[in-house]
């Protein structure tokens, strides 16, 4: 076995990113992370500091790179889906949805209306769960410990619902190309309705703790401001873009999974600071509740997986008495299904922004190329711009307000 040698990063490599003053020793270069609780994962920031003021901020990512895109090329379409959960581990249902929609578009597969409605309910619950983790950790970063405990209490209710339908709290892989893994169990609707009854008052509780809290406002208002033009130029999406006054929400502009049937608003704020992004996310949770309520009320009956046997395995009950069902079952689980030599790009609105999947087939049963356009990667890129001129303590709030998940950044 050969020994692996580590060569340290030399100063020359980042010389062009820091100011002249750093070279003369007037400003200090300081590492923040990769092991730092307020970077929300393994993110390393090289900071150039003048006293406590951030002069330059150089993000260093890749510590959580797992080669998921490369690995997916070696798996069949239905096998590759398992890895999508591991990208953005706070938005597993959303990743499943984006991937399934890309496969469905590539092979032109239909999804029954009931499956679409359940997908919407689950994705919106997941959005609330993700926003709860964001809210808890963001408040914790700024010194408000209580909110964290309350948020995780409610998140647990959502994780229980996810466990109920898929057997897993987080890595669900519940959506499959052509529909769902299986229908929801008895008691699902009651559990979601129970959540809908409890949650509006809980959002009010968080708001009571934070929205008019003078310390919280001092720490967030006017911090990390990004203008509307800059937000568009830098390709920000999700709450950071809407916090700067651009009502761009993929659920509205390119509706998918039947979002056009539901009545909801896209909250925006004009200020573009950390506080605006906080208010946008709080309001988004309320809108998600509205969508879930409508989807439950209108929930159609029927199958939850497509009847196209070339792509979707037959139900177990059919295999016993149908020769074709047995052949399809065998064919799909040994060989998978082929996809045309073409490419599609599908995007959905994840809690963090535009989550896009570029999927290219080569006529075989494995994806030729999968690329994830992840919102965290795109949004994190603006951090140097947001952080410039602020204090180190505010940087913590800014990172929190961009809401990154490092699994999503590094893929």
């Amino acid at each position, binding site marked *: 076995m050969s020994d692996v040698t580590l060569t340290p990063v030399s100063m020359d490599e980042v010389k062009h990113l820091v100011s002249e003053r750093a070279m003369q020793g007037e400003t200090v270069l300081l590492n923040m992370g990769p092991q730092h609780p307020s970077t929300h994962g393994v993110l390393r920031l090289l900071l150039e500091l003048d006293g406590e003021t951030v002069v330059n901020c150089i993000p260093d990512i890749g510590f959580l790179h797992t080669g998921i895109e490369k690995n997916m090329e070696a798996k069949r379409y239905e096998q590759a889906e398992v890895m999508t959960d591991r990208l953005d581990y706070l938005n597993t249902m959303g990743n499943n949805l984006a991937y399934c929609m890309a496969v469905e578009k590539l092979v032109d597969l239909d999804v029954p209306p009931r499956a679409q409605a359940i997908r919407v309910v689950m994705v919106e619950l997941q959005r609330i769960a993700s926003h709860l983790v964001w809210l808890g950790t963001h408040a914790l970063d700024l010194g408000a410990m209580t909110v964290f405990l309350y948020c995780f209490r409610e998140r647990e209710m959502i994780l229980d619902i996810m466990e109920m339908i898929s057997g897993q709290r987080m890595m669900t892989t519940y959506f499959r190309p052509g529909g769902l893994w299986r229908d929801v169990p008895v008691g699902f609707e009651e559990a979601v309705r129970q959540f809908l009854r409890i949650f509006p008052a809980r959002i009010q509780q968080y708001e009571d703790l934070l929205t008019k809290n003078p310390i919280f406002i001092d720490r967030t208002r006017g911090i990390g401001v990004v203008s509307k033009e800059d937000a568009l130029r830098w390709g920000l999406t999700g709450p950071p873009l809407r916090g700067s006054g*651009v009502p761009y929400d993929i659920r509205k502009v390119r509706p998918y999974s039947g979002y056009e049937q539901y009545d909801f608003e896209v909250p925006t704020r004009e200020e573009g600071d950390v506080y605006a992004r906080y208010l946008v996310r709080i309001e988004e949770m309320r809108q998600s509740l509205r969508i879930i309520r409508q989807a439950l009320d209108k929930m159609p009956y029927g199958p939850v997986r497509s009847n196209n046997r070339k792509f979707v395995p037959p139900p177990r009950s059919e295999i016993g008495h149908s020769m074709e069902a047995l052949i399809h079952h065998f064919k799909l689980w040994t060989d998978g299904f082929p996809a045309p030599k073409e490419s599609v790009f599908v995007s959905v609105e994840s809690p963090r922004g535009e989550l896009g999947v570029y999927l290219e087939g080569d006529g075989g049963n494995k994806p030729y190329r999968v690329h994830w356009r992840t919102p965290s990667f795109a949004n994190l890129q603006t951090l140097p711009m947001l952080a410039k001129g602020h204090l180190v303590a505010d940087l913590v709030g800014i990172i929190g307000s961009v809401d990154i998940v490092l699994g999503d950044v590094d893929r």
Partner: protein
Amino acid sequence: MGLTMDEKLKPIVDALQQRFGAQASTFRGQTRLLLERENLVAATTALRDEFGFEMLTDLTAVDYWPQESPRFHAVYWFTSWQKGGLQISLRVPLDGEDASLPTLEGVYPNANWYERELWDMFGIHIEGHSDLRRILMPHDWVGHPLRKDYPLGYEEVQFSFNQEEIMVRKAHPQE
């Protein structure tokens, strides 16, 4: 969903075809334009300033190895918020020996990280880039992992009769 192009895209595609000799194709309602690399910066500037595509949504590449000409396709996706989330894609074919692209940083600043990722993962050189370092892999990594001739890195199974033989060629991170 079908082979038809979005009607709002029609004038834009016509203009790009005329001015830059782009070839259009549509699959399931999504329009892609095949474009020479010399016209890339001019075409994207036109997309941003004249046609209102203010966002660079995605930038990636596909490797068609062992095919050498073109070996890569760089794939750009642009979104227009003003035009109701309209999307268009540009594809730039690149040869294996001469895999380089002009930078789009001057047009869309967020191309910076995407182009670093192209360099890191595919070894496509970006001309004029302000900060062309590896982004996801360690800075001293050798090779470009998303190329098709880069092995996935599964370990060969060793038995007592070929233990030594496999040990010699076993892949490790420095290779």
